[in-house]
């Protein structure tokens, strides 16, 4: 009964005219930007975050969430029509989705992607509503020791599953943790690493970090990249799928939803891994594996459902534990903190309208995507052909004005310029920037819990081995680190990511 009660609170919040509008804006902007070349969900959200600061917390979060799954969907559309993934989680959709388009089934492919995503989104929304309260109950039992252990585990797993070298990922997490410590120390009030600047006492503005590392660095990386895009445009009449295609899509979509929901829960999991896993499984269970790569319906429906389910269930650890499992969730946590809401199990109790409103809006947003996007395909097709030289000045200017508008100061803009240079160097050094962002968000929290644990134990480090939960989490993290050193598995991981390039 409580389950329905909660959903009722959620729909009540999400269905207000205002929030519906922001959900709509988020979904549309997200789709548009997900389709554009060289602008992933992380850069998009970073760019639009300042806009959400002036909104009510619920509206702001609903809009950001809308951008996230809108971008997911937009990425698949580009994958199917142009054979270029709009973003990393739709890489797999290129394989069979584009083949379908070339056989004249572009409309059907888009419809399968949309309906598969919608089905997965519905199931994932129900799962979040059902399991978040349970997970939050567990989180209430956590003390500082368990929290610290969980952060270590979360960061390790997120780094392990992100692509790129593992050791450089860990180094990036540490760099992020250190950068997160800039500003006043919570316990003593000492200003750390501010170099005498009063403006830095509140820490480095995290939107500036995100914009510099993602939006601006992407511009530098893409500016000389002149890809010509050939669009296989579908006619509107071909949007309907045949009964046979529908039958072929049903079971893969169900399986994809299950895989995605599960993998999204894991730290470091989410949309991309889910879609890869689903494709591999569909290929294995298929009775006609030779069709894969030549327009197999199952090879599109499965991964599409999986990436949407994964994108959505990755909200669970963020909402209940306050632990971001990927870069997008790190930005969501940052957005919550701006509104003075500390992410964690207490959000559900103290701000039920935010928690349940966000969940209800996910379902509404998914429904909007299906209803609005299919008829708008001609518009999207034109958008895909926008030149990059039009795009990047827009990104730059909107980001810079946004940075200024956060606090009417130019300091965040200067910081963003610094992180642009840093981001370019990281790009050159093949060091992934997303782990840095996770560390940056978790830095102060991790220090807090570490210090409090040792204060409780009176300086005895063994406290981390006395709590059974903490032992389990730290051991899993240690095992993960060991596994990555073994060459055999490192090879397997390399192969898994090579398909993407």
């Amino acid at each position, binding site marked *: 009964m409580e389950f329905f009660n909660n959903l009722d609170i959620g729909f009540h919040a999400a269905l207000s005219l205002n929030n519906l509008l922001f959900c709509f804006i988020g979904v549309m902007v997200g789709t548009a930007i997900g389709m554009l070349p060289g602008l992933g969900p992380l850069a998009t959200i970073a760019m639009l975050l300042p*806009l959400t600061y*002036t909104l009510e917390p619920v509206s702001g979060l609903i809009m950001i969430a809308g951008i996230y799954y809108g971008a997911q969907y937009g990425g698949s559309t580009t994958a199917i029509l142009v054979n270029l993934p709009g973003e990393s989680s739709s890489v797999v959709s290129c394989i069979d989705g584009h083949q379908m388009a070339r056989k004249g089934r572009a409309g059907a492919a888009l419809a399968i992607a949309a309906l598969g995503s919608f089905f997965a989104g519905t199931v994932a929304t129900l799962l979040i509503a059902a399991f978040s309260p349970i997970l939050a109950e567990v989180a209430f039992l956590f003390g500082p020791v368990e929290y610290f252990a969980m952060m270590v585990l979360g960061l390790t797993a997120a780094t392990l599953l992100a692509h790129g*070298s593992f*050791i*450089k990922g*860990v*180094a990036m997490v*540490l*760099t992020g*943790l*250190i950068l997160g*410590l800039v500003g006043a*120390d919570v*316990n*003593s009030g*000492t200003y*750390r*690493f501010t170099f005498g600047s009063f403006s830095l006492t509140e820490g480095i503005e995290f939107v500036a970090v995100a914009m510099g590392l993602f939006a*601006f660095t992407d*511009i*530098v990386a893409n*500016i*000389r990249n*002149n890809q010509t895009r050939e669009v296989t445009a579908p006619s509107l009449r071909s949007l309907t799928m045949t009964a046979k295609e529908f039958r072929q899509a049903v079971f893969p979509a169900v399986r994809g939803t299950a895989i995605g929901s599960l993998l999204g829960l894991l730290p470091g999991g989410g949309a991309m891994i889910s879609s890869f896993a689903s494709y591999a499984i569909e290929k294995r269970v298929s009775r006609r594996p030779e069709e894969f790569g030549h327009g197999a319906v199952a090879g599109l429906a499965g991964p599409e459902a999986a990436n949407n389910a994964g994108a959505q269930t990755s909200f669970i650890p963020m909402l209940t534990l306050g632990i971001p499992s990927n870069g997008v969730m790190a930005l969501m946590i940052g957005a919550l903190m701006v509104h003075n809401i500390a992410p964690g199990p207490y959000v559900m109790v103290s701000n039920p309208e935010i928690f349940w409103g966000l969940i209800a809006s996910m379902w509404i947003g998914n429904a909007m995507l299906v209803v609005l996007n299919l008829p708008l395909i001609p518009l999207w097709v034109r958008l895909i052909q926008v030149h*990059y*030289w*039009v795009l*990047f*000045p*827009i990104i*730059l*200017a*909107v980001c*810079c*004005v*946004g940075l*200024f*508008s956060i606090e*009417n100061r*130019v300091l965040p*803009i*200067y910081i*963003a*310029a610094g992180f*642009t*240079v840093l981001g*370019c*160097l990281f*790009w*050159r*050094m*093949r*060091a992934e920037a997303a782990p840095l962002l996770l560390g940056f968000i978790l830095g102060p929290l991790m*220090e807090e819990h*570490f*210090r409090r644990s*040792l*204060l409780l*134990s009176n*300086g005895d480090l063994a406290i981390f081995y006395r709590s059974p939960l903490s032992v389990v989490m730290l051991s899993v993290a240690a095992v993960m680190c060991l596994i990555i050193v073994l060459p055999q598995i490192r090879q397997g991981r390399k192969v898994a990511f090579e398909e993407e390039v």
Partner: protein
Amino acid sequence: MCSGHSARPAACSIYANEVLTVIFKTNGRADIEAGLFFTFFGAATAALSLQYRMGTIAAMGPGMFPFILGLILAVLGAIILVKGILGGGEEARPLPLWPTILISLSILVFAFLLLTVGLLVALPAQVAIAMWASEHFSWKRVIALSLGLLAFCYGVFVYFLGMSVPLLAV
């Protein structure tokens, strides 16, 4: 390279050109550079932490946690560096030099001009400098984009969201 294509600022001397070519264009090993960066950043953090009170393990001062992080990072950096020197490292991506400089510069110029002159100048200046980094530079495009963006930023930030962005800061 200073002159990737014709409309490039030709201010740099041949010598500087060669040095920059070595730094930015040679496909050196990514891990050597990353190792150096992390070692230096970690060591600097640990060194700077020393100026803050360390405290004891039980009652940590503000210097302890960053000191520990800095040390671990420096060690990891050293491992990455050694891996790079021994030849197991990854190849670096070729970073386009002029876009890196021009895009960063355009952001700095925007920040500087926004409060001294105002958005009406800062935004077109940014667009012009940033466009210079692209092969598609033309004054017509700069003007068109600037006008469009000024209208958009004014509409969204000032009119719709009610933020105070100085159009002309005199």
